[in-house]
């Protein structure tokens, strides 16, 4: 790896170069809703020890399989709730810093 500044060949029109740090136009404008945490719930599916067993069976299917099929609906429900609760915050264009919990970088 090299940090030779000559490697850059920046295009000053498209990407104004800034010495010493990534300031530029910059920013990430993070926005956070507590409802977003629901998106973590489906990850519980990765804990295999909870469901890696044969019984109880459903329609002859071992628990391991039907439990994971049920989780398809858990995943859908979580994403749907986040969608529904954040739907109307779609365009806070002019008031970026007034109703947001997030901070720019």
């Amino acid at each position, binding site marked *: *790896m*090299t*940090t030779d*500044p000559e*490697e*850059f060949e*920046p*295009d000053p029109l*498209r*990407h*104004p170069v800034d*010495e*010493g*740090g*990534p*300031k*530029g*136009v*910059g*920013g*990430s*404008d993070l*926005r956070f809703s507590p409802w977003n945490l629901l*998106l*973590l*719930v*489906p*990850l519980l*599916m*990765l*804990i*295999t*020890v909870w469901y*890696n*067993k*044969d019984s109880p*069976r459903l*329609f*002859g*299917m*071992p628990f*391991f*399989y039907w439990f*994971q*099929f049920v*989780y*398809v609906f858990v*995943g*859908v429900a*979580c*994403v*749907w709730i986040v*969608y529904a609760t954040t739907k109307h915050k*779609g*365009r*806070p*264009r002019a008031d*970026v810093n007034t109703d947001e919990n997030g901070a*720019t*970088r």
Partner: protein
Amino acid sequence: MSNINWTELIIFTVLFVGVAGMGFWAAKWRSGSTMDHLDEWGLGGRKFGGWITWFLVGGDLYTAYTFVAVPALVFGAGAMGFFALPYTVILYPIVFLPVLRLWSVSRVHGYVTPADFVRGRYANRTLALLIAITGIVATMPYIALQLVGLEAVLRTIGINGGGIAGHLPLFIAFLVLALYTFKSGLRAPALIAFVKDILIYIVIIVAVIYLPSKLGGWGHIFDTAQEKLTAPNPTTGKPGTGSILLNSNNQLQYATLALGSALALFLYPHSVTGVLASRGRNVLKKNMIALPAYSFLLGLLALLGYAALTAGVKPIINAATGKGDGNTIVPVLFHNEFSDWFAGVAFAAIGIGALVPAAIMSIAAANLWTRNIYKEYIRKDASPKSEAKQAKWASLVVKLGAVACILFIDPQFSIDLQLIGGVIILQTLPTVAIALYTRWLHSWALVAGWVVGMGWGLLLLYGIPNPASGKQHFGGSALTLDKLSIFGWHPWAGSTLQIYVGFVVLIANLLVAVIVTVILRATKTKDGADATAGSDYHADEGDAELKEIAPAH
């Protein structure tokens, strides 16, 4: 070729030709003012609504290869093959928010590829080039594998010749695909995806209702499958290693493979193409809710691997290599259990299912080549028109390359490459996905992390043998923790737990990126400037700052 099933072949051919006609006609479908621009040819005019996006992205992510390979994996190994379900369930909650940010920033700045975004965010040409090359290299074998899916079907119908003549039908099918993609761009797979997915849904639903009733119910199917998976190997006498449940060693591999694959999927250029072609954030949000319907279908399809075990399906011997082709088990199951005409419909569904992702992948690879290599390094003054022309030809070259891979090299080579592809595309996560949230990581630190993740990943994959197939190298993606060595130090010596290689090297990649960033910031090393602004990540359809679609310059 005397044992061709003519009913199956005729139905397959009729549907295939009908779809090809749609592909050529698609150029006129909802067309914009010009086809000579990547926004139009490569992204379908950036205006697809909810339904089109659902079929397009569904057809893009759930490929023909997935549909034959996942049941084949379950057929051979049991529960481990079922990782495809958790993989595609956790996928949407994970990508829900980042995908929206990627769409917005790309729409404001007119980005066509993930490497375009990296170029804008970091102003580091080397980093953008690395991302573009990684994307192309990871996509190429994926396209070749679609041919493997198509060939599995043709072989079951009875077209199973050796040499060039045996591959002729495959070659013709891909040539037709290449021509209509050349003409219609992304509109062709978008339109064809409707037919493909409706056929697939019908076939799978019929299969999972009809087959268990014929084979004695799911209970009997699972019990028989368990017996056969654990039965001793007739030649070696060793007990079978498969099971309908996970064992204590492969649970970590199951979870990390699902997580790693889910993190990787939307880093693939063809997934990004599907996302960027949509009209707005709301279309994407609704799709993240509706796409798991395909996951459910994939889970059902995986179970057909057990149905095939119970029905005593034998994989067809590949006349070209003389070995059994495991990917033929679902086609053979359909061939044995269904009437000829319905099997023909099922084969057409899989065959057309190969065309949709192959088209989108070749378009995505062509976009990367054009935007991030051709325009960046070869012809910096390329006009939008010459970009579109370059991309059309690139898509043709990419597809011919994929056919050549299958014709002249053992298909196993493509399968190995695709395994590697999943690991290497995951190494672009810090540069592409994390960059959507923070610009803190230094662009040269990301290059360092990429080099480490890539190098170590390839080294680890090279060292994994596969006792079942007798391969010494690239035998799989499951690393036994005992073998994990960090400069000679074995932190988990003696452990028999298995973990996904891609996941291990991603952690190393991230660690290196963070440490090098701290060093570079402390030494005030110059970093490129950021061309994006915070509000860009929230822009939506109808906003004033969106870039004009297909502008003349």
